[in-house]
């Protein structure tokens, strides 16, 4: 199961599957697929923030920061996505960098509340300052690019675009996590004083994780606004933040793919209960509770167990690199 050829074949199959998928779906589901892909980036970027052990509640708002940046840049300067997406990421990262100073003086509980407050304050600014953020109604009229003859307003082309961008971002995130920087981030998580005692500046690494995570979720925000065409403050409120938490917690956060499993499974689940519109939040609430009480290691632990079932020899060599 862990042999290199097997992995390559599986990855190729996955890739082909992803590329062919939209052609089998109806428009409504194609739509969903795009949002799912964007949300994969959202949770993957959240993971790197939580890697150092800090759970922030500002991630959803950071996505909005990226989205609003993309929208404003597009409307003011009429620049295409080549510009708005990186800018979305950069501005989100910059705001995160600024917030590091007040926020990272607190840890754990205080950081949770502080990040929540900062996020809510930013969101309220979008509501209050109709110029330039458009208030509760937000902004509209943001369009995707026109590259050659391909009209990216269509779902399928936009999906491929999203897939490409998200794929690249995931690659970078994965590489970071498996580099020595990732190792240091892990060490900060597990035993910060121990890391400090050998010269690790834990503040710096927490900040780094936070900034990187914010960059990528900012990009996700840009992807979202270019597809939807509009952006409103309520898209990035407590509701969405809670979804992110649910995806990460239910999926599991000990492995890189944990949150991704979470968002995929729960989005599919969500679709299947679409008819139960009114009580959907309650079902989510129940899923959260059941998850915490009965599957605290998340869905990814199921993957772990399945893997062990398939392993014929007892593990004598190096464990696989993902952590």
């Amino acid at each position, binding site marked *: 199961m862990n042999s290199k050829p097997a992995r390559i074949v599986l990855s190729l199959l996955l890739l082909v599957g992803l590329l062919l998928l939209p052609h089998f779906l109806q428009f409504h589901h194609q739509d969903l697929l795009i949002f799912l892909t964007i949300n994969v980036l959202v949770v993957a970027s959240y993971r790197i923030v939580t890697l150092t052990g800090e759970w922030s509640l500002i991630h959803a708002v950071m996505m909005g920061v990226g989205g609003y940046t993309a929208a404003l840049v597009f409307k003011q300067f009429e620049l295409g996505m080549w510009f708005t997406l990186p800018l979305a990421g950069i501005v989100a990262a910059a705001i995160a960098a600024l917030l590091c100073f007040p926020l990272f003086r607190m840890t754990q509980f205080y950081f949770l509340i502080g990040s929540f407050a900062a996020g809510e304050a930013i969101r309220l600014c979008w509501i209050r300052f109709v110029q330039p953020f458009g208030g509760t109604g937000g902004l509209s009229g943001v369009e995707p690019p026109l590259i050659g003859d391909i009209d990216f307003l269509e779902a399928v082309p936009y999906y491929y675009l999203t897939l490409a961008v998200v794929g690249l971002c995931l690659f970078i995130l994965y*590489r970071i996590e498996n580099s020595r920087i990732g190792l240091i981030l892990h*060490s900060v998580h597990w035993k910060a004083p121990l*890391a400090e*005692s*050998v010269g690790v500046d834990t503040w710096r690494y927490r900040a780094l994780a936070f900034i990187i995570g914010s960059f990528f979720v900012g990009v996700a925000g840009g992807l979202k606004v270019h597809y939807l065409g509009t952006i409103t403050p309520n898209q990035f409120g407590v509701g969405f933040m809670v979804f992110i938490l649910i995806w990460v917690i239910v999926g599991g956060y000990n492995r890189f793919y944990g949150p991704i499993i979470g968002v995929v499974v729960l989005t599919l689940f969500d679709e299947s209960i679409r008819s139960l519109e009114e009580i959907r939040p309650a079902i989510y609430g129940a899923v959260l509770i059941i998850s915490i009480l009965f599957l605290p290691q998340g869905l990814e632990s199921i993957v772990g167990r399945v893997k062990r079932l398939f392993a014929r020899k007892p593990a004598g060599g190096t464990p696989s690199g993902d952590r």
Partner: protein
Amino acid sequence: MSDSTILKVDQVTKRFGGLTALDKVSFAVEAGEIRGLIGPNGAGKSTMFKNIAGFYTPTSGDIIYQGQSIRGQKPHTIAELGIVRTFQETTLFQELTVFENVLVGCHKHARSNLFKAIFKLDREIEQAATHKALEVLEFMGLVERRDQFASELPLGSQRALAISIALASEPSLLLMDEPFAGMNPEETNHMMELTRKVRDSGITIVLVEHDMKAVMGLCNYLTVLNFGQLLAEGTPDDIRNNDRVIEAYLGGGVH
């Protein structure tokens, strides 16, 4: 202060609200020695370590390392200067392997920048770090266990690993906080050997410890604290026969 003094603790006082944990304590450590910092429970030994290593800042007084004041610096800065401490109650990165644990310790000398790390352009740094980590593991006798998880190790190996992590950062001064706690005689002997080996490689050691066999057997000189104050200093023989020290241990602390 002689030329070979590596650490000077100068009238250090540490107060927490109304509680005075350390009261004008002064002592000096010579380069290359193994200094024992002993005293009954609650004497302030661990607090002193935390002050030296930067986890606490002294309320008053100064700490001078290799001629420079390090008072008020952050732990990671002090670590970079060459002072590393180990922790009471084996503190390790439990979820990482032995090798990865030590690799973290190599951090100081293996700074990579983000860009390079992503695209694997920092090969030399990686190799140097790996080399160093293996060297340390070899030195401490842990090479065969390199791929085991830290949580799987027996006690003696865990303590050795804690020291390995510290060694990987190439300290000049190692503060060891009760490394012999909970060890049986065989493990104690092995640990004593390792400690001597570390000292012989050029690292000065200050040892906080309750196990008197280890203390008497390893240390060149002893500094005794009681109730946050300096009680006595001297060679192990001096201290063994010092009435006030005996009284302090019998009267107050658990041995």
